[in-house]
């Protein structure tokens, strides 16, 4: 290591020293006390000089520390409210420490390792890893039990790849209302929605935002994949989501799931028959007819369109229309001008689209 006149203190050493210093003070330290004395700042501090860049560093460090869940608080000096120079910083020990009844057994620790592993991407992955550090820190018994769960033989993955996911989570953290453009299937133009977020929930593999819509005064679920463009935060701090909002939103989705059913016919021995029969809550009517549950008819229509000729929707008619519309669009989008006069590779149905459309409607 080359010896230099002013050795640069690594960022983690500066942050660690900041946390230690603020934990060990009852009355708090002012910003200038911190900058002048705490390891990592003091080396760069100019007494009586311009410390603007060091002050900015301190502001960023405070955010980093708080992001870890560390309760870094400010105290105003009595009689000097609003004066930045006399503001004091500290971390109250009682609020820093993990509560004594929160300790983890090796089995719990192993289960939480798996839970953390489910998140492999983005902010949730980093947060899970950090949470796991704290869990392991507080669960220091022997780890002999950890193998029983077979952490290496199971790989769970939760995806949260919708562009709106992180902006909405940030809004929930800041108790903000949001505005976004939302496109409903079948409509061509997205419509602006103004809502107070309650929770982000994944149901049936799709992420939804449960939120209170101001215009209608009602609670609604919004599919994240249908949010187009940016999510804007408004009225920060004024819309805290009530406790248990996520559980309630899931319960409501389950209620919808239980009541919305579709009857479909599946071809015998087909992939659709095998897989749809194993879908959650599917009932068999016998004779190749299955009753499927769903939350959103358009998503079910897309799921069914992926089985092509192996499925036929019996009811409701609305679902059948959605599947038919999707299939028609696929044919149109994959027909070139040259294909039109002769599409010998497809089944012969050259003049029945209109006809079957009529039939579909009259049967619906």
């Amino acid at each position, binding site marked *: 290591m080359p010896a230099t006149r002013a050795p640069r203190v*690594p*960022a983690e*050493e500066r*942050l*660690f*020293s900041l*946390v*230690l*210093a603020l934990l060990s003070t009852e009355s708090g330290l002012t910003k200038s006390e911190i900058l002048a004395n705490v*390891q990592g700042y003091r080396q760069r501090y100019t007494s009586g000089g311009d410390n603007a860049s060091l002050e900015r560093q301190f502001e960023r460090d405070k955010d980093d520390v708080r992001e*870890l*869940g560390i309760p870094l608080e400010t105290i105003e000096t009595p009689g000097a409210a609003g004066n930045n120079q006399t503001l004091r910083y500290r971390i109250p020990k009682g609020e820093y420490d993990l*509560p004594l*009844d*929160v300790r983890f057994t090796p089995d*719990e620790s192993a*289960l*939480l390792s*798996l839970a953390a592993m489910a998140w492999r991407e983005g*902010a949730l992955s*980093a947060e*899970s890893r*950090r*949470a796991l550090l704290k869990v*392991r*820190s*507080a669960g*220091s018994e022997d*780890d002999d039990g950890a193998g029983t769960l*077979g952490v290496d*033989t*199971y*790989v769970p993955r939760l995806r949260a*790849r919708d562009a709106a996911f992180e902006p909405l989570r940030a809004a929930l*953290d800041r108790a903000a209302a949001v505005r976004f453009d939302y496109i409903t299937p079948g409509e061509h133009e997205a419509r602006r929605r103004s809502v107070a977020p309650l*929770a982000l*929930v*994944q149901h*049936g*593999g799709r992420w939804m935002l449960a939120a209170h819509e101001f215009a209608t005064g009602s609670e609604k679920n919004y599919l994240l*994949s249908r*949010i187009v463009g940016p999510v804007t935060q408004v009225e920060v701090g004024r819309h805290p989501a009530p406790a248990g*909002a996520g559980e309630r939103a*899931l319960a409501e989705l389950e209620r919808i799931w239980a009541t919305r059913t579709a009857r479909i016919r599946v071809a015998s021995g087909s*992939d659709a028959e*095998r897989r749809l029969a*194993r*879908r959650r809550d599917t009932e068999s009517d016998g004779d190749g007819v299955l009753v499927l549950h769903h939350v959103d008819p358009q998503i079910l229509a897309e799921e069914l*369109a*992926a089985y*092509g*000729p192996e*499925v036929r929707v019996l009811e409701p008619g609305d679902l059948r229309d959605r599947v038919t519309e999707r*299939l028609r669009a*696929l*044919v149109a989008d*994959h027909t070139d001008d040259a294909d039109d006069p002769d599409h010998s*590779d497809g*089944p012969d*149905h050259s003049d029945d689209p209109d006809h079957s459309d009529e039939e579909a409607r009259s049967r619906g």
Partner: protein
Amino acid sequence: MADQQPLQAQDKLAFLLALVPYLIDRERVSVAEAARHFGVPESRIRRAVELIAVSGVPGETMQYQHGDLFDIAWDDFDQNDMIVLTNLVAIDDSPRLSAREASALIAGLQYLSALPEAADRDAIRALMAKLSRGAGGAAANVAVGQDLHDVALDTIRRAMTEGCGLAFEYAGPRTQGGTRHVDALRVESVDTDWYLRAWDLDRQALRTFRLDRMSNVRVDDRPAEKSIDDVVIPDTLFQQAAEDVIVTVELESSSLPLVADFLADTADAPDDDGRVRIRLAASNGFDGVVRLVAGLPGRAVVLDPPAARAAVRAFAAAALATD
């Protein structure tokens, strides 16, 4: 660049704050054991201990005098690779969880409740409540719904723990069903899709099976030949092969999350209308790609090759003809 460096430092800080209480609790622990406990390389433990040993509080004098710093038994550390903290300052307990951290683990736990090992609902609930308390009672604002606990899972897990083979009937969308004899290696899931990665005895190769295409799953009365230690399993569920045909698809950028696991390369940047071009690798014909495209929301269009376009058209037309 500027954003990345502080994030790293933040993670290192979290590690230091977690390591100190562990070391206090253990009194004397080897570098190797600490590394195993936290699942990190030994070098990371050593670097952290060296930093902790010279860190502390400014103290009364604001001079970081000897008693204001942590200290370790240096001889034991240097000679025996053992860690003993001999002086403590400022912290003696683990930090609580942030609301976001607790929320991430709670949502992960909700997801795991589809596992046979997590079938004890009361225990899971208690653990979630504990996490929430560990974050100062913060409300979890991310929740994951219950998925089906596939009956096949129990049998697969039993075969794995008993070191036995596994047998089941399996048919793909286009293939005739048949009995498969495998050694189960690993169960994987992506949201609501569950897969078994296994050594296929008849094909003498690693294969990935969808749980919802398996039926009559049973433990085979023979010892498994391969275990997770014998076979290198790639991280991605689907591997591209040299003979695969590349299919170009244009879709809504909001549909990207639905195809992300199947991309042959990085998606193009979206155009002004939010349309994006991707490439998928098609093996054994276009059937897989066709079904994927048919199930996407909004407009999804195969652009190339023409044979893949024709396959989508034929598939959709055949489906319309069943009405």
